[in-house]
């Protein structure tokens, strides 16, 4: 069984397992806007495979992380729409 723990998405705790991506955790939290486009529009994930860069979020303080390509880690702090 994959290990279960929680991460925070915009300050709220979300229960996840270690085989989930940060993107899955974000969507599980009910958040749909991941970032703002250069003209300020809400954007969500598109390709799911690390190509489109639409799912960029801030993870543990590091900006522009592709959330679809990063696995959840214990106590990971994820911030969207920054």
């Amino acid at each position, binding site marked *: 069984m994959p290990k279960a723990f929680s991460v925070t998405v915009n300050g709220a705790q979300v229960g996840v397992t270690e085989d989930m991506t940060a993107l899955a955790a974000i969507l599980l939290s009910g958040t*749909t806007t991941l970032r703002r486009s250069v003209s300020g529009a*809400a954007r969500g994930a598109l*390709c799911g495979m690390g*190509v489109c860069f639409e799912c960029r979020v801030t993870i543990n303080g590091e900006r*522009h992380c592709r959330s679809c390509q990063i696995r959840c880690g214990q106590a990971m702090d994820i911030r969207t729409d920054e």
Partner: protein
Amino acid sequence: MNNSRRSFDVLVVGAGPAGIAGACCAAEAGVRVGVVDNNLRAGGQIWRGETRDSHLAEAASWLRRLASSPAEILTPMEVFAQPETGRLTATSSDGLCELSYKKLILCTGARERFLPFPGWTLPNVMGAGGLQAVVKSGMDITGKKVVIAGSGPLLLAVAAHLRAHGADVRTIAEQAPWSRLIRFGMAVASHGRKISQALQLKKQLSRIAFRAGCWVTAAEGNGKVESVTLRTESKTWKEACNYLACGFHLVPNTELASLLGCELRAGFVRTDNFQESSVSGIYCAGEPTGIGGLELSIAEGQIAGFAAAGQRERAQEYFGERKSQRRFSMALERAFMLRDELRPLPSAETIVCRCEDVKFGRLKEQSSWRAAKLQTRCGMGPCQGRICGPAVEFLFGWKAESARPPIFPVAVESLAATGCVE
């Protein structure tokens, strides 16, 4: 930043089915093999989330074979430049890695083709494979209303997968007309395996409305998609949904091949009988040589793996299988050709380049891809035209220019370390 160096006789880029097959064959032939992939694990998009204990027998068997082979698996690691012949540079979570090789096998796979229409940038409008990948990565789709649209056999596989995970799949809208799908069905009727796969899918998809000759003209919603407008030649209607999963078949990932100087033909990497590209010692297998699906990728991967390891006789054992699978590949291309009605979908206000928010109206004033880049920054954001490039090619007929390093965005210090910048 930590720097590390690795050296291989055969380096494989891409650990999908073609790369796994290539790495296994080369490693089992006794040479030093490394296989690098920018995803978290080997398997590629088609076997994303599958493991050695998977219920999917073929995936499980190849993943077991790879794990027990002497090939070194390097994931996640993203190749972004070749500072000199025989040496690639890649980034990983540990920093920069230099990968030296004598022979290289490119198995960089494909991505979905996206076409712009009003509302396609709304959150929860994703690729068909995109939504499937996110569900495979742990997102809960139970009870969500999903419309699947676009083109290609992937739509059916995605529908079956999402339904198995509890999604309420409302409609599958395939842009290709029935007439072409029926011809496709006849053409693949000689492939026993494809037929049994199709019959199994049919069972999994019972009671889902499958519409051929049907396409999305717009997505609507406040902050995220809430409905889509669907059209056929005879009618237009709205369908409520929580997600729109929309992709128009596949386009090959040829950026690295192009960077390394491999010749492309009609957008695909040109290879000889042994899967060797126009650059001596660089092989290519799988979707970048022509969109042909799983079985063709595995056949080509095995040929490339044995050939790169110097075992050309063993490589030849797979020529027959490759030939038969290539017929399927040609049938695919004919069946899922894009219809002209998809071209006028974007309005002047529709975003085409999502990275730089370039609208269709501005692009229409340009004369070429180069002019569009210079005047509007289209294709110059972090995806480097991977999403808008194929769309622009379909809409305006402009071909993307050759790739330049870095082929993925990297930190300035990584670039400096490779000598790509002074």
